[in-house]
């Protein structure tokens, strides 16, 4: 009993000691520091608001990317797919020209002279061979016509047939395959020419333009004329469309001292039968509809008819003053 009483007393002492120490802490007073802390809280609140604003912007950006991460992934995949597809090599068949092979009897009535007299023969390369067929001697001509369309060669072939004495005549296209990336293939039929004509004479500009077009295989003639007010007028003398083998389009930008001239040329293959039996008004309507340009006037759509052939030129003259 005595021992238990001693233990109780020890525990009470210990409790007292602990309570005493806690009561000392409780007696500490920091109230006097409150006004300073209060002031600091006001300043801190302003700073917090600014931080919050910055954080909100960052947060919004993070949220946007987080919420749209799937879309972002799709976009990147789509972009990679497009780039990869554009760089995929594709094979294109290009025409280098046409070959007319014809056979005439050796003893013809001056066929060769009449043939060489045809105007387009000056651009042709001709080879000839003598062959003996069933006891009679024949001459085989191989006429190579570079940069010539099939329609043109068909016309030339008809002209040759009209000379008479022909045993056989055949047209063979000269084709070759080219491998190039898809984007290059898409751009192959479109090109752009930029010329800074500042300080150039009319003649210099004309030569510059014609030579640049020739490099692209287009034989076009232009005429530049500077008017009294210093304005340069451009006239297309010969559209040169006949020399274009495949449909090609180009944009021509001529920058002059104070003006900019833009000429856009678009060629397209049209079935010659399309215009057969059509009046000028009907053809003009077709042109407006096909090109999606109902605003084209009758004067701007020029139609010429030669030997049953219909030629349509759209001439739009636009000068944009700077």
């Amino acid at each position, binding site marked *: 009993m005595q021992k238990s009483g001693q233990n109780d007393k020890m525990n009470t002492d210990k409790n007292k000691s602990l309570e005493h120490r806690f009561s000392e802490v*409780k007696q500490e007073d920091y109230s006097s520091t409150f006004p300073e802390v209060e002031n600091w809280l006001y300043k801190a609140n302003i700073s917090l608001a600014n931080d919050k604003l910055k954080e909100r912007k960052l947060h919004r950006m993070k949220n946007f990317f987080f919420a749209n991460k799937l879309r972002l992934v799709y976009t990147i995949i789509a972009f990679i797919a497009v780039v990869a597809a554009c760089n995929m090599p594709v094979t294109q068949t290009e025409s280098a020209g046409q070959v007319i092979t014809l056979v005439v009897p050796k003893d013809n009535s001056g066929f060769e002279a009449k043939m060489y007299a045809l105007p387009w023969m000056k651009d042709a390369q001709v080879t000839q061979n003598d062959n003996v067929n069933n006891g009679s001697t024949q001459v085989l001509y191989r006429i190579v016509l570079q940069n010539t369309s099939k329609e043109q060669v068909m016309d030339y072939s008809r002209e040759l047939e009209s000379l008479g004495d022909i045993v056989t005549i055949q047209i063979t296209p000269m084709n070759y395959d080219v491998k190039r990336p898809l984007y290059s293939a898409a751009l192959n039929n479109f090109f752009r020419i930029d010329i800074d004509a500042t300080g150039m004479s009319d003649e210099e500009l004309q030569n510059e333009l014609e030579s640049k077009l020739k490099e692209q295989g287009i034989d076009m003639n232009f005429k530049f004329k500077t008017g009294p007010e210093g304005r340069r007028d451009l006239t297309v003398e010969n559209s040169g469309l006949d020399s274009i083998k495949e449909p090609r389009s180009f944009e021509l930008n001529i920058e002059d001292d104070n003006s900019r001239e833009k000429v856009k040329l678009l060629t397209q293959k049209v079935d010659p039968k399309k215009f057969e039996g059509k009046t000028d008004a009907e053809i003009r309507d077709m042109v407006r509809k096909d090109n999606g340009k109902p605003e084209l006037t009758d004067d701007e759509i020029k139609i010429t008819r030669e030997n049953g052939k219909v030629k349509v030129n759209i001439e739009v003259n636009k000068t944009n003053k700077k």
Partner: protein
Amino acid sequence: MSRNTAEFTELLKPHYNDAVKYSRALCATWSADDAEDVLQQSFLLALENFHNLKDTTKFRSWFFKIITTTFYTAIRKHFWKKFLPIDDSRYNAPDMPEVFDRAEQTESRIVLNKALSVLSAKERSAILLYEIAGFSIEEIVTIQKENSLSAVKSRLSRARKKLKKQITQQEHFSGRGDDPYGDLNGDLENETLNLIAEIRSER
């Protein structure tokens, strides 16, 4: 921050003294600067989240909960700070004015601080919330995010026991003019005395 600072300080004022005392006692063995860091972070966190407090009558327990959570976080950082130079403040607010006394502490306070340092963070916070801040056991359950009263009760009991033991031990050595933690260098005599003190306190 839809509510203004005035409302916050108005609500803080009656609890300020207890909050500072509780905060200092939590960081008992830390320097005044480190303890002020915990208090500053608590104030800023509370100010930032004040708009989330729906019932202002619960301000006191809400604010003490913030101090307690900040202290738990600070303990982890305090450990790593020894090895890495961590910039633990995510706020650009100006520094809080000095609140804690830099003067040398009393003998009695040193004893209590040393005893508190033996407790785990949860035990320390539970006993201080009960003894210094005057919270009920039910309130401590909420502040410490516990599920049962018994968990807090046993924590308090454990903490009290440990404190008594440590204080008795220290008082015993101070009576002899020794410091039980002052010279633990593997000396056989000191270690034996420690052991005797432990056995005595357990009886």
